[in-house]
């Protein structure tokens, strides 16, 4: 890494410590090999995976697990594809069972996703809150996908979520962070009296600048999948996302200049030679 983020502290997430603030998905890659290379290039230390039925007919395909370094990476099982609290809870419990069998530290957490609609893939807020409460009561550390609604974010944190993860824009849309004002309110509400509470942008990232913007706003990390896996050159994009995440984080720590309506000269005004026209 060329930059030296000496001021930075590790990301503390559900009792885990990470240097990387990028969480990357494992879907939509042209091959498992490419996925593994992209994970390495992104510098990620956490990858999210889905829980699905074992194929009982075609057993020829190689397992995803053969391409994940489960000793180095912390696996974050998700409840992707669930449209009810009940289904999300079942997926979470199955994910925990799978991860405990692999002896991976990710056995104690879940990326909760309860969707409301297959067209928008927006979260169902009522079912999301219900599932959060039940999973927290069941001992899970819940990293909760939600919309960018600040009130909902407060409710999810109050329900005991380990991290609130607002969508920048709809999943896979590549629209970036559509409402930075809401994200700023979420950050203020959730971190006001609890500055280390992790807020992670989950979904909607299209390119590197979207990641940088999320981090510049003060988010603790970014979770993305399609932005890398769907790029024309996923491996190069994985490098770009890593750098954008680091750049955005450093810019946030450094503190940006305020926006002003008029110009402010950078060069001294004293010592100018005599102007041609007084």
């Amino acid at each position: 890494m060329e930059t030296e983020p000496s001021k930075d502290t590790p990301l503390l997430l559900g009792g885990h410590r990470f240097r990387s603030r990028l969480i990357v998905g494992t879907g939509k890659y042209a091959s498992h090999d490419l996925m593994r290379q992209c994970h390495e290039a992104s510098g990620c230390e956490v990858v999210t995976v889905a829980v699905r039925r074992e194929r009982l007919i075609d057993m020829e395909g190689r397992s995803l697990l053969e391409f994940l370094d489960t000793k180095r990476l912390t696996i974050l099982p998700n409840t992707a594809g669930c449209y009810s609290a009940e289904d999300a809870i079942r997926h979470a419990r199955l994910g925990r069972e799978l991860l405990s069998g692999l002896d991976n530290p990710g056995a104690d957490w879940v990326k909760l996703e309860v969707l409301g609609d297959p067209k928008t893939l927006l979260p169902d807020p009522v079912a999301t809150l219900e599932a959060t409460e039940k999973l927290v009561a069941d001992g899970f550390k819940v990293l909760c996908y939600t919309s960018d609604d600040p009130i909902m974010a407060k409710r999810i944190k109050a329900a005991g979520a380990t991290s609130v993860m607002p969508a920048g824009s709809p999943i896979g849309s590549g629209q970036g962070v559509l409402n930075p004002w809401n994200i700023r309110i979420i950050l203020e509400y959730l971190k006001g009296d609890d500055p280390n509470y992790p807020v992670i942008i989950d979904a909607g990232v299209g390119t590197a600048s979207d990641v940088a913007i999320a981090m510049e706003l003060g988010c603790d990390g970014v979770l993305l999948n399609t932005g890398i896996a769907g790029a024309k050159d996923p491996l190069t994009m994985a490098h770009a996302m890593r750098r954008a995440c680091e750049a955005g984080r450093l810019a946030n720590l450094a503190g940006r200049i305020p926006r002003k309506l008029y110009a402010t000269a950078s060069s001294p005004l004293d010592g100018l030679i005599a102007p041609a026209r007084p």
Partner: protein
Amino acid sequence: MHVIVNGLSRDVAEKVTVAELLTQLKLRSPQVAVEVNRMVVSRDRHQTHVIKPNDTIEIVTLVGGGSE
């Protein structure tokens, strides 16, 4: 006896355990999780949990996915 495994009807021997079913299906226990009638049967109970007629069994693994 008749059971449902991952949505498909299947005939298995009476009093088969979860562990025996996984062996018959050539599945390795560490890489799957098993649910019987919507309740997880944890790995330490695979040898002792006996499957009953008409049980609904889900056998899952981890697959690639981000969101959705």
